[in-house]
């Protein structure tokens, strides 16, 4: 995990292209509204249309499809569990029956339909989130959230957390490697011991570093809170983009209604 987690989704957001060029607040608003539409959709068509739109856009700006699959895989495993529970536990119209150790397992039609709907919502929802996070740098995303009146302290905290994840990650990787070359992960018992040491060192380091960071901050005039302001300008181009995205939202919404 550690070795691949440097592929935070937003590492792609620093390139310049059509999608990353859309102003952050617009994209945040679009994503949130689309998430609601996705969740309220009575049919599988809206979620699938959303997924199609997002994934197509991401592939168009050159995101490796392997990564998209990777991001979708984990939620889909969970959705799979849910689908199975729905098939067997929900509904009245029997679809199929499997004899199983003296029991009859009954799969229901309504359950299958509901399972598929949930599955499609997962695909649609996850696509939307990666659409947002792969095309918007974390920093812009959070400043946009600040503009939407998310508490400043929360934003400030998240920015700091985001920054120091990378610093600590580097330290963890080195400490873990240092343990490995001295056979710290030779068997399970030693692994647990080495892991505890690693976690403990991480905490101690975090404290020490926090002290030094604080010194560096007050040396540059820090008085207790950071000034967070969204400075980006909302130009004509952004207005056009916002109108287009609104139209897309309306279409996505209508797809669900018409089919129902």
């Amino acid at each position, binding site marked *: 995990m550690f070795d691949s987690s440097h592929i935070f989704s937003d590492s792609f957001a620093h390139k310049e292209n059509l999608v990353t060029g859309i102003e952050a607040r617009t994209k945040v608003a679009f994503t949130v509204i689309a998430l609601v539409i996705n969740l309220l959709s009575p049919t599988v068509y809206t979620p699938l249309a959303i997924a199609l739109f997002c994934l197509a856009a991401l592939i168009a700006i050159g995101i490796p499809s392997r990564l998209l699959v990777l991001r979708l895989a984990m939620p889909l495993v969970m959705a799979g569990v849910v689908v199975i529970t729905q098939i067997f536990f929900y509904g009245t119209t029997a679809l199929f029956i499997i004899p199983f150790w003296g029991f009859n397992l009954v799969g229901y039609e309504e359950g299958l339909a509901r399972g598929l709907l949930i599955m499609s919502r997962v695909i649609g929802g996850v696509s939307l989130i990666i659409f947002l996070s792969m095309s918007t740098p974390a920093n812009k995303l959070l400043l946009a959230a600040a503009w939407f009146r998310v508490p400043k302290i929360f934003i400030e905290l998240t920015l700091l957390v985001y920054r120091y994840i*990378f610093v600590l990650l580097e330290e963890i990787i080195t400490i873990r490697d240092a343990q490995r070359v001295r056979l710290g992960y030779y068997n399970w018992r030693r692994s647990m011991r080495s892991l505890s040491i690693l976690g403990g060192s991480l905490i101690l380091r975090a404290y020490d570093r926090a002290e030094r*960071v604080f*010194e*560096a901050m007050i*040396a540059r*005039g820090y008085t207790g809170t950071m*000034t967070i302001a969204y400075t980006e300008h909302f130009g004509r181009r952004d207005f056009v983009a916002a109108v287009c995205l609104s139209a897309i939202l309306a279409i996505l919404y209508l797809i669900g209604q018409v089919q129902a």
Partner: protein
Amino acid sequence: MIKTEALSFSYDGCTPALREINLELRDGEFLALLGANGCGKTTLLKHLNGLLKPSSGRVFLNGKELRSYKDEEIFKQVGMVFQDPNDQLFGATVRQDVAFGVVNMGLKPDEVARTTDEVLQLVGGAGLPDKAIHTLSFGQKRRVAIAGVLAMAPKTILLDEPTSSLDPRGVSSIMRLLRKLNKESGTAMIMATHDVELVPLFSDRVVIMSNGRIITEGPPGKVFADIDMIRKAELRLPRLAHLVEVLQKEDGLPFMSTPLTIGQARRELLSLLESRSYQKAEGISSHVRIGEPADDT
């Protein structure tokens, strides 16, 4: 101008990290702080901008005691570049980080933007502003850290080992940047370092610490002439000085002074050769140019 008077300090109340330090940093001066690991360099620097408070003794900034200033007033005048750029860079992007100090000083957004771009240009990071900090290389991080301090336009900058872990090219470009700032804008610098090869080239004055005390100070040429003192402080001579010392001691060759830079060494050697080789003396002496070391670091 920063001055300390009988400054002492201990972290835990018993083992002293600084003992009776009397130091003066004049306006526009470039001062190098040398000493073994753990001799107290970082601790001293942190006293000069009030990050640590003396256990006894006093620190003056422009003739007034440091503790009578408000924090902001100090940090506007005295900037500090920390040893590990990862400690210092806490913004999400380069632009945000460099702007941090300026924003805190209360400048308007467009002024902030202008200053930010200017200093990034200055440190050679013009292409960086929108990069996330964690995607920078070590050398780039160092430059951004310096830019963040420069943006606040302090009259004095404290530098804690600004060249450690950098490659030679990186060292030389950072040092040239610092010297330029020092000469052109008259920014006073005090730089803690382990690099004895570098110091003579850049500093007006050298201070050597050992065990929490200042054991000697003066212009580089004078300080490095006292070999015993240098050894005592767990340091070594710059290579060229060492060579000349060996030639003097072992081979009895007469040198006028201990050379620290390549330019000085060259002059010394040429004049030695000249005095020895009568028949070619004139041909060579016309070549002798006295100047700064060229691409020396």
